[in-house]
């Protein structure tokens, strides 16, 4: 499959629409990552409906440099053998690819929290999904306004 940049896709879409008088629908690459994120969310949730709660997602409101955006993900949990956060999936919606990172925690983590630096290509929402050992899935999202894009 040819890899079109967003610009090329939009230009192509525009040209096609102009020539065939068709509405420009879903040709823009913009929707590709969102669709990928939706697919990954579905897979990760494995049938459970993601619910709000337990996740504390720290991201700057405005990122001056999209190439280095500090992010902390923290999920409230006793982190015992009986009840702990097993996996955390971090997704972008307007990067070249949806997956940012996938974290695995264990009771020996003590705390289901991690800090990293990520790349955001443009202003977008970052989505965090956290799955407990019993299958419960939590979801949280935060919008980051990116001044200078840092290609993901």
């Amino acid at each position, binding site marked *: 499959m040819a890899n079109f940049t967003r610009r090329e896709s939009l230009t192509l879409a525009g040209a096609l629409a102009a020539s065939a008088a068709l509405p420009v629908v879903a040709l823009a690459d913009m929707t590709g990552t969102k669709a990928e994120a939706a697919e990954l969310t579905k897979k990760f949730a494995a049938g459970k409906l993601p619910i709000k709660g337990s996740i504390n997602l720290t991201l700057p409101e405005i990122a001056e440099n999209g190439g280095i955006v500090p992010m902390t993900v923290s999920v409230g949990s006793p982190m015992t053998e009986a009840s702990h956060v097993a996996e955390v999936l971090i997704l972008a919606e307007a990067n070249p690819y949806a997956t940012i990172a996938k974290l695995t925690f264990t009771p020996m*983590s003590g705390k289901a929290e991690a800090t990293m630096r990520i790349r955001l290509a443009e202003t977008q929402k970052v989505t965090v999904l956290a799955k407990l050992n019993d299958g419960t899935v939590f979801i949280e999202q935060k919008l980051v306004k990116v001044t200078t894009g840092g290609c993901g």
Partner: protein
Amino acid sequence: MDLNPRIKLPAEIQKGEVFVIKTLVTHPMENGRRKDADGSLIPRKIINLFTCKFNGQPVFEAKLDTAVSTNPYIEFYAKVAEAGTFAFAWTDDDGTVTMAEQKVTLKG
């Protein structure tokens, strides 16, 4: 490629205390979309996996994608009940694994 892993964690910990571990490696995390001076694409080359084990048991793991910044900094937590060795490993797309270790002893 020398990742030069830097690790910060307490040398002495209280049994059952939750403490932070900070890690940093040098790596360009090439996302495969950058062009060099000639205009050709620099191929993707990232650290795609980071693992932390304590005395052989998994503590924390991070699968990284191209959206992780250059020179990956990963900070996380651990809670252990005995003295021992933390083993860290970073895996590059090309299969190379860089490892580092740090020991902890128990207070009192």
